[in-house]
């Protein structure tokens, strides 16, 4: 018997970690109501479980003030007929959204504007920790991938954390697929799918969401080599300057903390280093963060 390398993949068995956006601020104004959305997503999950007996699906909900695990098909107590499973998922989602709203209301007194972005970085980190656990469990394991069902706009405060998750996923060779159910494109998820080799899709008609999900995101990673999946039109890798948050194509970068500025400044606002183009004088690193 040949010794198994540390990551021995079975060809077409997959582990899909789906991140559901449950931001109530977004769903209140969305063209597709949340219950309709669940009517597309839950049959899609059942489809994944039916494609192969060993497939596993994990659901993580992305809220505005918390993230949590909703469903794990690999759990002993999640087996049973699909009706029981569906109602279990819906009940857990309701509990989660209720708890999340309470936390948001509790902290909303201090924040100046209501949170309109959801905590994508939190659920990506949870997904990656779960997948690491699967990798630890022996040589034979399903091929993991992450599917983000995102509707809320990107929160710029999560940029560093989302990029960290993307680079970790790239290292572990885990593709991040994205399906945007909101109105505008998400730059974070475009970059995520491009860097990790996943698929980015913004369906034109949300009534047929199940059709899009089943055609594009249901196939396992091995079979994707034989399919023509949607290619992203153009990924914008330009940076945004720290002072005005507008995208620039030429700028100045602080050599100490790598902050990006659009104009020449005398002093870096992030790390406090003073710039002088002449001889290397002593700089006082007074980092405020």
């Amino acid at each position, binding site marked *: 018997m040949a010794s198994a390398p540390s990551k021995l993949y079975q060809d077409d068995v997959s582990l899909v970690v789906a991140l559901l956006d449950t931001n109530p601020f977004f769903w209140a104004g969305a063209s597709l109501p949340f219950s309709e959305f669940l009517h597309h997503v839950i049959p899609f999950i059942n489809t994944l479980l039916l494609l192969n007996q060993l497939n596993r699906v994990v659901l993580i909900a992305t809220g505005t*003030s*918390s*993230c949590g*695990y909703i469903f794990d098909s690999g759990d002993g107590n999640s087996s049973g007929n699909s009706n029981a499973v569906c109602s279990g998922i819906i009940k857990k989602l309701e509990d989660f959204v209720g708890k999340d709203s309470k*936390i948001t209301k509790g*902290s909303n007194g201090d924040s100046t504007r209501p949170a309109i972005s959801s*905590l994508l*970085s*939190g*659920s990506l*980190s*949870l997904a*990656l*920790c*779960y997948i*690491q*656990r699967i990798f*630890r469990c022996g040589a034979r394991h399903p091929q993991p991938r992450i599917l983000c069902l995102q509707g809320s706009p990107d929160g*710029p*405060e999560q*940029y*560093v*954390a989302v*990029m*960290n*998750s993307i*680079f*970790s996923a790239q*290292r*572990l060779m885990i593709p991040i697929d994205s399906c945007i159910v909101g109105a505008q494109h998400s730059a974070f998820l475009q*970059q995520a799918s491009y860097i990790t080799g996943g698929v980015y899709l913004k369906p034109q008609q949300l009534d047929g969401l199940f059709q899009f999900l089943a055609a594009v995101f249901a196939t396992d990673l091995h079979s994707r080599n034989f399919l023509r999946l949607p290619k992203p039109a*153009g*990924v*914008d*890798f*330009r*940076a945004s300057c720290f002072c005005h948050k507008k995208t620039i*194509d*030429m700028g*100045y*970068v*602080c*050599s*100490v*903390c*790598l902050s990006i500025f659009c104009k*020449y400044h005398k002093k*870096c606002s992030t*790390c406090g*280093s*003073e*710039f*002088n*183009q002449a001889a*290397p*004088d*002593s*700089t006082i*690193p007074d*980092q405020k963060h």
Partner: protein
Amino acid sequence: MYGARVAFQPSAATASSSKEKKRRGEDDDDEEDDNEGKGTEAWERAYADERSWEDLQEDESGLLRPIDTKTLVHAQYRKRLLLRSSTGGSAASRIQKGLIRYLYIVIDLSRAASETDYRPSRMAVVARQAEAFIREFFDQNPLSHVGLVTMKDGLAHRLTEIGGSPEAQIKALMGKLECCGEASLQNALELVHGYLSQIPSYGHREVLILSSALNTCDPGDVMETVQRCKKAKIRCSVIGLSAEVFICKHLCEETGGTYTVALNESHFKELLLEHAPPPPAIAEYAAANLIKMGFPQRGAEGVVSICSCHKEAKVGGGYTCPRCKVRVCELPTECRTCGLTLVSSPHLARSYHHLFPVAPFDEVSPHGRPGQRLPTTCFGCQQSFVGQGGAQPSLRTSCPKCNQFFCIDCDIYIHESLHNCPGCESQRNSSVL
């Protein structure tokens, strides 16, 4: 038939040779002469030292597994993490790190490098590990540059120019490398000093010497060269393969680098990879400058243009320099026409985690404080903490900021690879930027 005949021969040969060795009184480096002295076969000798079956144990379902070294690995990792965060200042304060590094790797190709105590030879092991190191280095420091220098025949020779792409360096390493002569530390340092004086003032200058020799043959006073390097603010580190040498230790102490000696191949790999993350920077060593950089957009598919790096027509893909509008094939690079440094925002983002590290987690005893109800599953991976069937509950750690509990595997993964605490990221008010 042929096989059977061959099988009988070695035992006869070794029996006679071991007797001969005993008669000659020679002490070889193989231990088969000591234990089970008379006439052991080759396959028996392989098991004399490593009893590989002792590394296995049964788990609860009767399957064989390697011995559970999890707690040992975790203890080692915690030691490393606390050492790293304590040498640079407290974990709470942001330590300045040299993110734009210009590193020269000096490879020793003297006669000592052809020794075979590392299989197949020290030089081959060094070349192989240096390739892995270069890839890891560019992964963690995308804006940095690496060059290669060799020490051979008492002279130092530049193998590759300092460059920002790993491919050129790796190609040179994989080429034919021969060892002969003596190693000269002074010549190597003088050469590197000359090259590093030409780099921009905001870059951090570093030298990493992979030394196999136990001596250095220099044309002049090597102490003077050490002082020159110290004045030029070059941080020199050495990894030795044989034993500790005083001049290397002196060099590293004077210039603020680290000196380590490898015990075996896997230890060498570990020591080498420790140089990949940026070292804590001494503030006066590099000036803070605002560097002008361009962020090119990816060209549309189907557009034909001549790329400036290969000088041939290419279809689609590629990036357009924002200043002079020529096409370049990959990033990060310097535009050949106008000299602008071209990067994409993920390259800068790769270094942000060095600036905003995750605080080390606190260890929590398995039973917690009296009266404290601990969660039964890890927050990150949902693995249960309680042992199965009366086994010890596993170790857990908790984040000092969000107070969530994690298992030790998640702890290692979060600090070494992910650089995000899932608990802190799942809360609204703990944003960094």
